[in-house]
């Protein structure tokens, strides 16, 4: 028992800092990118859904098809699939920064759909009243759509963040490093049960915190 603990502690002393750092890099890059791109893409999907112009119909069809295409690829395949693109973008195929590219792509399309759903739930009557006030499209987006959909969007963001944590562990396996990688390398391949348990507990705590913060903020914004 003591041996198990001391070996676990040794490994953690050597590896934990780096693993946390790598996970943070992956999450920070992919989360911030997907947050902006995903929200924008979600708005594009929503706003072009009922568009009457040919242009908006084309935009909707193309974006929607692209989103579905990416979402149907299993993440681990996506990582491999995007390697050339990743290399072109960041000049390397391994490490947390490289892993952030497929992570950001997956999370972006995931969030885009959630944002689209959140916007579609906004009461049509409220939008109509805003149009009847003479409000412009941009005012309605900022002051009505965003405000009414905010709690649902926030819940979507929380879900996205939590699945990013899961995906980042997978990205770790293909060279991204991070906490997930720690679990696989030591806990799985080297039978370091202590490490396995530690990483699981660690991830559970992170996910719990993320969920609580998300719920709290969503609640604050909904009335």
């Amino acid at each position, binding site marked *: 028992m003591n041996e198990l603990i001391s070996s676990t502690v040794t490994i953690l002393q050597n590896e934990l800092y780096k693993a946390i750092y790598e996970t943070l890099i992956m999450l920070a890059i992919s989360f911030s990118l997907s947050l902006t791109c995903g929200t924008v893409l979600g708005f594009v999907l929503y706003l072009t859904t009922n568009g009457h112009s040919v242009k908006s119909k084309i935009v909707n069809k193309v974006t929607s098809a692209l989103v579905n295409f990416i979402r149907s690829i299993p993440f681990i395949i996506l990582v491999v699939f995007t390697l050339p693109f990743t290399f072109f973008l960041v000049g390397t195929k391994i490490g947390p920064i490289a892993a952030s590219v497929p992570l950001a792509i997956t999370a972006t399309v995931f969030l885009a759909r959630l944002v689209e759903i959140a916007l579609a739930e906004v009461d049509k*009557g409220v939008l109509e*009243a805003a149009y009847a*006030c*003479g*409000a412009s499209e941009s005012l309605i987006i900022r002051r009505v759509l965003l405000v009414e959909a905010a709690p649902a969007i926030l819940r979507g963001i929380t879900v996205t963040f939590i699945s990013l944590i899961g995906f980042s562990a997978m990205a770790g396996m293909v060279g991204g490093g991070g906490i997930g990688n720690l679990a696989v390398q030591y806990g799985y391949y080297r039978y370091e049960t202590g490490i396995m348990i530690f990483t699981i507990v660690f991830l559970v705590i992170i996910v719990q915190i993320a969920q609580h913060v998300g719920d709290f903020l969503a609640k604050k914004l909904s009335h």
Partner: protein
Amino acid sequence: MIKFDSVNVVFERKNEQFTAVDNVSLQIDQGNFYGIVGPSGAGKSTLVRTVNLLQRPTSGNVFVNGQNVTSYKDKELRDLRLGIGMIFQHFNLIKNASIFSNVALALRASNTPENEIKNRVYELLELVGLKDKADVFPNLLSGGQKQRVAIARALANKPKILLCDEATSALDPDNTKEVIATLKSIKENYPLTVLFITHQMEVAKTLFDEVAVMEKGRVVEQGSCYDIFAHPQSQAAKNLIKCSIKGVIPEEILAHEKDLYLITYKEECAYESVISYISRQFNLDISIIAGNIEYIQKKPLGRLLISLKSSDEQSKAKALAFIKEKAFVHEFNGEI
């Protein structure tokens, strides 16, 4: 001033054409409190929504203050809408925004400078008696209060026209009274043309100067509110008004009594004395079954349901002719 000129609205429904508004021509004068009544699905909302082009007419033209607005787009359309307030059955407030922000939205729509917005919002909330609710969110308000917020929002840019689509239909009687009182007091102090849809006849009576009755997309009757209530011509109008007086008369009486006549007195008329006069003069046995007086546009409208019994058909006819000089008389069979 609002003018509908041969307005049609046709919806496509699964390869089928559905005419929701059928060749409607109407004129609503400046300052009028104009009502549109009619059964559900008559096309009332669709018609009213063509005024601010929430619904574009399939054909025909809509004029607002003399301008043909039918083809307005973008900036022109937004400017038109700034001059037309609208309130809805379900209030349509932004529920995640404070009362203040809800009203401020309309001011932002007209690019009111931020530093003026605050004063103007408080001014508007004061107008509807909700100044102390500025920081509250809509779900904490009663229905009547929500509708008053919606009124404040609708009036934010000092419109000349206010459209109301079933504005009191989702409210209980107390809240309805509250909203009506607010609308009336605003109308008194402010030159506003109001176009108000309702299926509540009680509301129609208290509010409207003029009424149009719609049925199946058409305007089937139109005129002063008083005249339509006193003497409805179309079946649609009769059906609507029937509801408001029929309730007074028990079914049993309708079943037993024969020779029932409904007398509708217009304006001032001491009908009690008329009844006793004809009863004596023509030697008739008259019993009064029911009677009521209501005020429409501040003018009294009296209705009396009598049973005229006489073996002498001639004196009965004479009596009826005598009353007809003073009032509308209908043989009553549960309808009017």
